[in-house]
């Protein structure tokens, strides 16, 4: 996904400043792309170049942020007691409704900085009437700016101060003033964060403009009334820079800030707010405080986002279908391979078993049984290749002659042997048994008592081992 290229526009009747911000290699970088004071903005001709630069950025990547009119924005920290954020979201809007002098349905409301306080939930609420927003959009359109977001100026100014000077110290009251010749916007808060904002519509232009200073003083005192302040910290930003320095100095003198306070001026007071607006869009912080709805986006941005959404959804659906297709193909391949093996098994079983046909699932069993039948039929072949009994007979006859053994009956078979005869003595009667043992028979001799002619009759019986 392409990163957002954000333009922060700080513009009012006294002039404008534009800052461009972008995320590059994980870092957010910003640059000032234009700044014009009140006299030069007449007719908006000088903004045309910046507008053209913005329009060159793809609408999908482009974010243009301006500040909503602070004088018509109410910023207030609110607490919904004894409930979590989910329920507090509804309750806080209702609580806000009864505190407003106009109908909440006619307003744009944003709730941000959610946090749990005890068993309740606290949020920073910002409210502005829609007609004020429309006026602001018309002013910006007259300058050639079509914003994609309108931020709450006090929140942006407070954020800018925190970025540059860190969070307020414990017990410190911080006043962040964004001052121009047109108006001063003062964000008031402490170590718990931004608490509210005041706007001075006709600010003192010079140090000796006593009435204006008194009005401003009064507004600041009203904003900080009832606070137990250990230390004040004033942070100034705005344009022109030399006036900001003058205003900060005069305010410090008028309030008699000594050791109990300090006055700080932003390093780049003229671009601080515009830069913060641009950075908040890139960093995603703007999402919670954007006062514009999706319906109020510029037409080209809406169309581009529609196209991206359709393409993304279509791409995701196509990828899903493709994933399913790949899986289906894989399973189809497995099934095909299984069919091939089954066919091969059947063919091989018929071939091995010499069978005409085999039953599916019983191929191996049928082939095995067929082969066992064939082997059983061929088993007599083993006997054919055994040595014939002729050899045994010849051996017995060769033994009998020299030993003077008379063989009367000779029975030989593949499994058994039986001899009857007579020998000159008992020892000689045992010699056929020994011979048969050498041929692999389990043999046993039964010799009888010597006959009248002195010969010993014997019977030898044996079986093949």
């Amino acid at each position: 996904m392409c990163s957002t290229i954000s333009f922060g526009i700080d513009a009012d009747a006294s002039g404008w400043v534009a800052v461009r911000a972008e995320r590059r290699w994980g870092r957010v970088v910003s640059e000032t792309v234009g700044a014009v004071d009140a006299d030069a903005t007449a007719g908006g001709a000088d903004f045309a170049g910046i507008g053209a630069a913005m329009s060159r950025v793809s609408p999908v990547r482009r974010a243009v942020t301006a500040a909503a009119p602070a004088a018509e924005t109410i910023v207030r920290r609110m607490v919904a007691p004894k409930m979590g954020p989910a329920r507090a979201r509804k309750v806080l809007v209702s609580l806000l409704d009864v505190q407003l002098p106009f109908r909440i349905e006619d307003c744009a409301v944003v709730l941000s900085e959610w946090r749990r306080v005890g068993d309740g939930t606290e949020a920073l609420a910002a409210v502005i009437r829609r007609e004020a927003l429309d006026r602001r959009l018309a002013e910006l359109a007259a300058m050639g700016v079509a914003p994609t977001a309108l931020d709450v100026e006090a929140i942006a100014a407070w954020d800018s101060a925190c970025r540059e000077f860190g969070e307020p110290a414990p017990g410190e009251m911080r006043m962040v003033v964004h001052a121009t010749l047109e108006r001063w916007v003062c964000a008031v808060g402490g170590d718990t964060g931004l608490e509210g904002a005041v706007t001075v519509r006709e600010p003192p232009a010079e140090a000796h403009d006593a009435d204006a200073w008194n009005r401003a003083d009064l507004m600041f005192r009203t904003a900080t009334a009832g606070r137990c302040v250990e230390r004040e910290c004033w942070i100034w930003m705005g344009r022109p820079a030399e006036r900001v320095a003058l205003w900060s100095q005069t305010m410090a003198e008028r309030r008699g800030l000594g050791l109990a306070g300090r006055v700080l001026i932003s390093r780049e007071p003229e671009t601080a707010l515009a830069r913060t607006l641009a950075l908040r869009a890139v960093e995603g912080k703007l999402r919670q405080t954007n006062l514009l709805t999706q319906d109020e986006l510029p037409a080209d941005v809406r169309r581009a986002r529609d196209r991206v959404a359709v393409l993304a959804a279509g791409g995701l659906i196509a990828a899903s279908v493709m994933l399913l297709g790949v899986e289906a193909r894989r399973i189809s391949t497995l099934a095909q391979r299984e069919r091939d093996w089954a066919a091969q098994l059947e063919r091989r079983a018929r071939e091995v078993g010499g069978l005409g046909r085999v039953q599916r699932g019983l191929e191996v069993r049928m082939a095995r049984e067929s082969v066992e039948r064939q082997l059983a039929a061929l088993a007599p072949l083993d006997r054919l290749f055994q040595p014939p009994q002729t050899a045994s007979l010849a051996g017995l006859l060769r033994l009998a002659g020299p030993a003077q053994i008379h063989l009367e009956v000779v029975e030989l078979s593949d499994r058994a042997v039986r001899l009857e005869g007579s020998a000159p003595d008992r020892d000689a009667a045992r010699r056929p048994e020994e011979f048969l043992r050498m041929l692999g028979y389990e043999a046993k001799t039964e010799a009888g008592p010597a006959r009248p002619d002195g010969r010993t009759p014997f019977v030898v019986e044996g079986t093949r081992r």
Partner: protein
Amino acid sequence: MKPWVREVVLPAAAGGVAIASVLSVLWLELAVVPERRSRGEALRADLRELDRIAESARRYTPHLRALDSACAASPTGRSPLDLFAGAAPGLPPPVLSATREVALDAHWRITQVDLAMADVPLDAVSAFLQACATSRPPWRVSALRLQALDAGSTRARAVLTLESPARREEAARP
């Protein structure tokens, strides 16, 4: 396009399809693919088993080859009576008491013959047995019983069982 269509309907539809697709793939991978694989493995195991069976079926191949070569020269062997007449000319022929045939396979069979000789010189028996062993195909003596008829064991009563392989269609008849 309405923002809710862009931000809710499209992502929900695409996400739904994607989730359904991933779940389907997971189901296929976990349920169908292992079953297919195991069936394939079983088939391959059966094929290997068939190879082993085929190997064991070849156990008698060398025997049959030897029979083929033994019978190649004289496909029709001589009968035992002919062999006896040749080995012991002038003597009365043995009595053929039984003939049996054992089929080995489609091509081969074994012929078994029982012969009885009431009174025969042992030399003639010996010459007959020698002739049986050297004939092609040979007649093998699987059992014999000799009973001497005189004190010098020159004559005997003999009962023999001979067997010989033969081609089924070309088998030698006794």
